[in-house]
């Protein structure tokens, strides 16, 4: 089937079997490898994308259900060379080790800050509870995002 989606603001059409995951189609057919395939059962969050206004695991989204959908992937978060504030915050706090989980954390953090510009540390922990970092770099990720939330409070 042909599915037409709006990905990072750009309309794209793709031919795929309807049962394929949005993740595989992003990766293999649309040239967007940022969303990572790790557990492929919704446990790790490394494939997180924003579908409409909802944070989802793209491995659990059947592409056949995506006709006309608005999708934001990690590739659509920075403004050209200017990092998004959550990316800048994670960069400054060294909230990256091997980097495999990073796209999922960036997308989940953007989704949180879009809805709540001044989250508490608990809000951040809860919002990122579906994203797993096996280097266990949670402390640095959390520090960066708490500092971004503090900047938001001062403004």
């Amino acid at each position, binding site marked *: 089937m042909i599915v037409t989606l709006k990905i990072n603001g750009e309309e794209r059409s793709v031919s795929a079997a309807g049962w394929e995951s949005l993740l595989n189609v992003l990766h293999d057919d649309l040239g967007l490898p940022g969303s990572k395939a790790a557990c*492929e059962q*919704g446990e790790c969050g490394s494939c997180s994308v924003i579908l409409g206004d909802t944070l989802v695991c793209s491995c*659990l*989204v*059947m592409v*056949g*259900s995506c006709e006309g959908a608005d999708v934001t992937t990690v590739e659509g978060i920075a403004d050209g060379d200017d990092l998004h504030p959550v990316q800048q915050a994670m960069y400054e706090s060294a909230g990256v080790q091997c980097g495999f989980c990073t796209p999922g954390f960036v997308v989940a953090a953007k989704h949180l800050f879009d809805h709540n510009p001044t989250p508490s540390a608990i809000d951040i922990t809860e919002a990122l509870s579906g*994203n797993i970092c096996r280097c266990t770099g949670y402390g640095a990720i959390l520090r960066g995002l708490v500092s971004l939330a503090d900047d938001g409070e001062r403004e």
Partner: protein
Amino acid sequence: MNFTRATNIDEALAAKNADTDAEFLAGGTDLMVEVNLAHHRPKSVIGIENVAELKETSTSRIGAGVTWDHLESSSHQALAHLARTVGSPQIRAAGTIGGNIGTASPAGDGLPWIAAIDAKIEVVSQSRGKRLVPWAQFFTGVKRTSLGADEMVTALVLPADMPQIQHFAKIGVRSAMVISTVSCVVARGTDGFRVALGSVAPTVIRVPRAEQLLNSETRPSEAALDEFAATVAKEVQPITDHRSTEAYRRHAAGVLARRLVVRCLN
């Protein structure tokens, strides 16, 4: 592959009637795991995630398409609590209570609540119309239900005498993103205590002998509570698997049920 996007229940039922092998897709949190890990290739899928009728709730029912993130603010205490423990934000935004019912995993987080409040499952088919199935007749085994090949789960129908005091707890290896080792809901209604447990039998179960022990006393003593916990541990039928052992699950079932009864008494 045939992908039908239903916009209402009638369209979904017509598609199911025309092809009873077609699989319903709501949040995808179960079906897509099968596709990804079991290399399951559905021949025909009926997408029901945009069916607005399935997202309606009232005091007497919860639509099958209601997602866990909405149930987190439910006025039913144990339901709201358990909804907050389902998976992760990503899973709660996609997964539905109807999916929990249709998948019928012994570990389905919503199922102990359904059993404790004695809810019914509303199922509909194009040719046979609507029927209400008591939960105990709906869940027949591990991921097995009495749902007909042409039917779909449309709602959870709540009892008129909803127990106002209800508590939930589950045990898993971590707090977030975990499949429960044992889960429990205790509800205290006008007829006494009802105790339901998940992950300790092929389906969600009630423990009638343990319930009877409690309900024969006005206020159970410590000794009665101990006997209750021991009876729960005897009455459950857990297995040893990669998540836990039979012995641990029996013990944990008694501990959790006792703890929730005490919460209901206070």
